[in-house]
């Protein structure tokens, strides 16, 4: 299609707003990265300067003083376990909601939809009391179980929507051959659903990795806390050493940026699928 003249003002507007917002998005992150290689004094004296020498001690000191290693480990543990279970559970539920014409599925599906609106805050008090009574407060299990639950509504929504779209004929052929529904789930549904599994997994992993309130309230032992909570304690009591703080922030940011750059297509698909026209 030929470019029309009337498009020119649109183009100028488009470029200026895109460039402006991109700078706005990137500049703080670049400044963070550069500053993390400067000692405290240099940051305070001239916030805009390029580091005189690359002061990597910030990173090793932040890592050891902030015990970031253990927080890192916990974050990986929580995100990996909870995300895997959420994905598997949601896929099972999504399969039955999409393909078994049971009336009770409607009710369950409505419950999950309601779950999308419920905030962590509205359950945190009862959850805290419940966990204390059951005896899993202040434990890793006490973090993982709520993570699984809060990942479910959106994952079920994604799985159901995707599986509704696959043809019934796949299943029917297997049923005639005498396969059970559980076998169909394992050998047909899971392979077919790989794209949505990837989206569900990556989206859920990201939100678990960044989760803050649940760990903050349900745990008090620092040995079982996760990276966001660990990094937050840097700002409070830890130190007024800005270099250390910046290094800690970079350590908290880099894994997710790398993760994002590798998987951004799936992630964007996940966000997009969440809100589409039915």
């Amino acid at each position: 299609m030929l470019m029309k003249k009337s498009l020119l003002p649109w183009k100028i507007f488009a470029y200026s707003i895109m460039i402006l917002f991109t700078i706005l998005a990137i500049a703080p992150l670049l400044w963070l990265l550069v500053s993390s290689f400067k000692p405290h004094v240099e940051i305070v004296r001239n916030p805009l300067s390029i580091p005189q020498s690359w002061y990597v001690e910030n990173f090793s000191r932040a890592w050891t003083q902030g015990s970031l290693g253990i927080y890192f480990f916990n974050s990986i543990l929580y995100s990996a376990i909870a995300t895997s279970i959420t994905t598997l559970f949601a896929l099972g539920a999504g399969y039955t909601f999409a393909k078994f014409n049971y009336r009770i599925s409607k009710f369950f599906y409505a419950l999950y939809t309601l779950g999308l609106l419920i905030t962590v805050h509205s359950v945190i008090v009862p959850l805290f009391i419940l966990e204390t009574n059951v005896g899993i407060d202040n434990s890793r299990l006490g973090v993982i179980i709520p993570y699984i639950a809060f990942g479910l509504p959106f994952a079920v929504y994604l799985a159901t929507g995707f599986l509704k779209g696959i043809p019934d004929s796949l299943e029917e052929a297997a049923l005639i051959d005498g396969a059970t529904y559980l076998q169909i789930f394992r050998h047909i549904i899971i392979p077919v659903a790989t794209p949505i599994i990837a989206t569900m997994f990556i989206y859920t992993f990201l939100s678990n990795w960044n989760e803050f309130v649940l760990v903050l309230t349900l745990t008090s032992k620092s040995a079982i806390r996760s990276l966001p909570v660990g990094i937050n304690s840097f700002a409070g009591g830890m130190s007024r050493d800005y270099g250390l703080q910046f290094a800690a922030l970079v350590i908290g940011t880099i894994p997710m940026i790398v993760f994002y750059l590798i998987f951004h297509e799936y992630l964007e698909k996940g966000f997009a699928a969440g809100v589409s026209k039915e």
Partner: protein
Amino acid sequence: MSNRTQKRYSYWMLTAPSIVVFVLVIMFPVMYSVSLSFSEWSGYGTPKFVGLKNYIDILSDPIFLHGLRNNLLIVIISVFGQIPLGFIFAYILYRRMVKGGRFFQTMIFLPITISSVVVALLWNQIFSASGLFTAFIRLITKNPRYVIGMFEQKNMAIIPILFVILWMHTGTYMVIYLANLQKISPSIIEAAQIDGASEGQTLRCIILPGMLAVISTTAIFAISGSLKAFDLIYAMTGGGPAHFSEVIAIYMYVNTFKYYKYGFGSAVSIIIILLSVGLILILLFFTKRLERRNE
């Protein structure tokens, strides 16, 4: 095992695990919250039934009302800031008005992957006396003593936070709108433009009506997300100084976990749910009316 029992057995094997976890962790506690909200309880002994006292106390507390005002400002910046901006970005990318759209898209979406806590601490540094923002303003105003004063003013303290929220979430909306715009066939637009429709007319008469349902759904997410806002503000200011940047979720957190007012805290969280539902109903009402006008 007959085929029907086998089917029923498989159904429950696949559905039950998620339902059990979901009901235990989310549904049951929500009900429990509702009943706690009518009582006074500090975590020990039995809760004392006090009727609507918690709700009356909350609604007449000026700190809560200031927090509510801040929450409503967050709703406004989300619905009238992030959504239009996100839509404009998506539209620019969809119509290929810029070269290297993929690059812009990736960069604008980047902030959403970073944890709120990191974003909060980063922006605190940016606004601090030795921060990027301060240094930048000092450079352009040539005033070497400039420091940001908004955080110390009761009515302004929330403004820098609103900006950070905009910075963080606009990319999400862009991606959602872009994916949905791509479902619109380009031939419809070409046909309209061959018939002489300008870019503005195409947008107003073809694209926007088609996107209304999606925009309305994102607005629902924006509203419920805005009322939930906690992590970012908690890590940035903790609601301070002197509750200037308080929001309802922080008010709830402090009353519950600092003052051990479990019943009171539950009542605040029920108010958050009721507010979301109320605002969403208002939104749906207006969407319906718009849809009818378009028909």
